C-alpha cells in the first residue's frame, strides 16, 4: 500500500459513517467499525459472507422487493462501472433485543454504491449507507397529512389511484414505487410504441424503446412535442393531440402516414402507423395528458401496395398478351385462306409465345437465356441440324418474348422454304456480345445446304414481324438476305434495359 492508500483506509476506518466493500458474488470483503456498530455485527461474522445471507431485509411485504432493489443496484455497478444510488431504501435489519433474541427492526437507508476498479474492470463495490430512519419517519408523517399535489400524467395513470388509496392505510411508498416500476417496465418493453404526454403542450414524460426506435432515438424527454419532433408540424397530428386534450375524446389512426426525421440530416422517412391517442385524467377527472400507443405497420402497408401494383401489372400484361394473340390471329388469318392451315400456323405461333412464357416463369419473370430460347424454337427440327454457338446472354422478359417470336418465324420459314426443307440442309446460329459498357448482341442466322433461294414475291407476316419487332420493340437492326446459296439474317440488338429512342 502507498501512504495515501494507507491514509484513506485509516480515514474510512475512523469515519463515523458506515462503509463496507463487497467483492464477487456480493460477499463482504471489508466493513468499517461504524458499519459493524450500526448493524451490531463483528467483522468475523461478516467477512466472506454474502450480503443477502447476512441481511435479508426482513419479513413483510416489502422485504423481498428491497432485497431485489439492493441486489439490482450492486449488479448494475458491476455491469456498468458507474456509480448507483438508492435515495431511500426500506431495509429492516435483525438486531438483538433486550432479551438477547434477534428481532427485525425497520430501517430506512440512503445508499450510494461506488465501483472500485482495477485495470478498468469493477473488482469491488463500496457501499456508503446513511441511516435515515428518523428523517424518513418524520417526512412520511408530514407528507401523509398534506393533500396530494396535482399529479403528473404518468402518476395519474400508473400511480395516482394507488397513491390516494394508500394514504388512508400505511406509509407504503416503497410498494407503490415497486408496482409503478413494474408497470413502467411493461411500458418500456411493450412491442408497440408507447409514450405519455403531459399538459396542453404535450410534453414527453415517458416513452418506450419502440417509440425511441420509431423517431430515430432522439432526446425528447421533457420536451413539448412541437420541439421534440418539429418535422411533424403541419402533418395534422399536433391538431389531433390538441383536440384530444381539449375534448377528452380519444383519437384513433389507421395505417396513418407520418414523415419522420429518423436519421439526422437525412430526408424525411414515411412510416405508416396504427395508433390511439387516449386522454389521461387526473383524480378530479380533468385531462392531464395523453397516452399514445400504437404499432408501426409500414411493412404491412407496403406489401399491400406491392400486391395492388402486382395485380394492376398482371392485368396489364394479361390484356396486352391478349391483344398480342389477337394480332397474331388477325395477321395469320390474312395469309391463310384455308382454315386448316390457319389453325396450324396460328397454333404454332401461340406455342412459340407460350414456350418463352414457360422459360420466363422458371426465372420468376426476371429474364431468360438466349441459348435456351433458341433451343426451344429449333429443337423440333432436330438438334443435329441446327448448330447454336455463343455465350450465355441474359435477356429481359420483353426482349425474350420478341426474340422467341422472331426465332419461331425463322425456324418455320427454314422448314417450309429454306435449308431445313432439304435433307442435307443445316442452320448455323452464331452470336456474341460486343461493347461491354453498352452491350450489343450480334447474331447471325445462316442457312446452308438447302434448295436455291429466291426473294419472296411479297413480304409475308413472318418477315414483317421480324423486321418490325427488331426495329420497334428491340430498338435494334436486322438485315434479311435472300442469298441464292442460302438465306441469312444478321441481327444487332442493344441489351441495355433502357430503350434508345
Amino acid at each position: 500500500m502507498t501512504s495515501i492508500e494507507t491514509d484513506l483506509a485509516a480515514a474510512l476506518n475512523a469515519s463515523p459513517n458506515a462503509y463496507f466493500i463487497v467483492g464477487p458474488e456480493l460477499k463482504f470483503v471489508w466493513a468499517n467499525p461504524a458499519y459493524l456498530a450500526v448493524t451490531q455485527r463483528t467483522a468475523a461474522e461478516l467477512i466472506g459472507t454474502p450480503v443477502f445471507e447476512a441481511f435479508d431485509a426482513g419479513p413483510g411485504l416489502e422485504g423481498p422487493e428491497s432485497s431485489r432493489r439492493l441486489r439490482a443496484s450492486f449488479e448494475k455497478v458491476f455491469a456498468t462501472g458507474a456509480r448507483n444510488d438508492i435515495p431511500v431504501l426500506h431495509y429492516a435489519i435483525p438486531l438483538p433485543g433486550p432479551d438477547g433474541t434477534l428481532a427485525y427492526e425497520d430501517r430506512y437507508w440512503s445508499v450510494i454504491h461506488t465501483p472500485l476498479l482495477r485495470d478498468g474492470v469493477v473488482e469491488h463495490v463500496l457501499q456508503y449507507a446513511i441511516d435515515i430512519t428518523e428523517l424518513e419517519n418524520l417526512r412520511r408523517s408530514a407528507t401523509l397529512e398534506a393533500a396530494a399535489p396535482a399529479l403528473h400524467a404518468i402518476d395519474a395513470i400508473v400511480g395516482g389511484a394507488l397513491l390516494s388509496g394508500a394514504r388512508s392505510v400505511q406509509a407504503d411508498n416503497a410498494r407503490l414505487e415497486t408496482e409503478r416500476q413494474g408497470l413502467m417496465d411493461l411500458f418500456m418493453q411493450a412491442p408497440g410504441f408507447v409514450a405519455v404526454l403531459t399538459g396542453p403542450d404535450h410534453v414527453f414524460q415517458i416513452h418506450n424503446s419502440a417509440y425511441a426506435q420509431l423517431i430515430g432515438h432522439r432526446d425528447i424527454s421533457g420536451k413539448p412535442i412541437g420541439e421534440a419532433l418539429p418535422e411533424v408540424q403541419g402533418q395534422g397530428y399536433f391538431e389531433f393531440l390538441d383536440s384530444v386534450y381539449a375534448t377528452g375524446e380519444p383519437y384513433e389512426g389507421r395505417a396513418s402516414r407520418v414523415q419522420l426525421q429518423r436519421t439526422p440530416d437525412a430526408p424525411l422517412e414515411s412510416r405508416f402507423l396504427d395508433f390511439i391517442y387516449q386522454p389521461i385524467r387526473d383524480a378530479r377527472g380533468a385531462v392531464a395528458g395523453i397516452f399514445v400507443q400504437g404499432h408501426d405497420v409500414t411493412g404491412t402497408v407496403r406489401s399491400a401496395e406491392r400486391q395492388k401494383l402486382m395485380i394492376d401489372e398482371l392485368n396489364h400484361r394479361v390484356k396486352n398478351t391478349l391483344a398480342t394473340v389477337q394480332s397474331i390471329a388477325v395477321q395469320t388469318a390474312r395469309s391463310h385462306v384455308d382454315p386448316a392451315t390457319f389453325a396450324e400456323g396460328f397454333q404454332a405461333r401461340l406455342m412459340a409465345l407460350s414456350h418463352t412464357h414457360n422459360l420466363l416463369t422458371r426465372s420468376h419473370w426476371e429474364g431468360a437465356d438466349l441459348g435456351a430460347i433458341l433451343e426451344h424454337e429449333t429443337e423440333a427440327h432436330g438438334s443435329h441440324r441446327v448448330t447454336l454457338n455463343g455465350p450465355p446472354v441474359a435477356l429481359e422478359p420483353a426482349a425474350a418474348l420478341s426474340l422467341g417470336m422472331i426465332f419461331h418465324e425463322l425456324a418455320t420459314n427454314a422448314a417450309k422454304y429454306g435449308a431445313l426443307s432439304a435433307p442435307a440442309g443445316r442452320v448455323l446460329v452464331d452470336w456474341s456480345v460486343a461493347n461491354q459498357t453498352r452491350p450489343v448482341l450480334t447474331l447471325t442466322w445462316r442457312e446452308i445446304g438447302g434448295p436455291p433461294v429466291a426473294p419472296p414475291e411479297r413480304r409475308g407476316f413472318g418477315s414483317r414481324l421480324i423486321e418490325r419487332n427488331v426495329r420497334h420493340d428491340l430498338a435494334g437492326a436486322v438485315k434479311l438476305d435472300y442469298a441464292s446459296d442460302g438465306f441469312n439474317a444478321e441481327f444487332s440488338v442493344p441489351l441495355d434495359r433502357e430503350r434508345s429512342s
Partner: protein
Amino acid sequence: MTQTLKGRRVLVVEDESLVAMLLETILEDMGCTPVGPAGTIEEGLAMVADPASLDAALLDVNVAGRQVFPVADALTARGVPFVFSTGYGESGLPDAWRGHATVQKPFTENAIREALMKAMGVENV
C-alpha cells in the same frame, strides 16, 4: 356505316409491334392511313411536332414503361383528337384524363371506330 373516317391520318403510339400491327390493320380496314407507329414517348412527341397533317391518334397509355400523357398534352395543344388504349381499364387513367375516349385491349374494330368518332366529335350517320 359511315365513310367519315375514310382517308383520315391516325397516329399510332404503341410499344409492342404486334399490337401496333393489329391497330394498323384495323385502321386500314376502316379506310384510315396509319401514321407511325411511335414506340416511345420521344418518337410520339416528334411525330406530333411534325408539320404533316394529323386527324386523330391512338395512344397506348403505358409506352416502354412510361405514361403517354406528354404526347396527349402535345396533341391537345395542336387540337388533334385522340383515344387512349389501355390494358388497365379506365382506372389506369389519372383524374385529369378520366372520361376521355378509351379503348380496352384486346380491341374490336367497332370499339376503335366508335372511340375515334367520339374523340373527333363526329356522328355515325
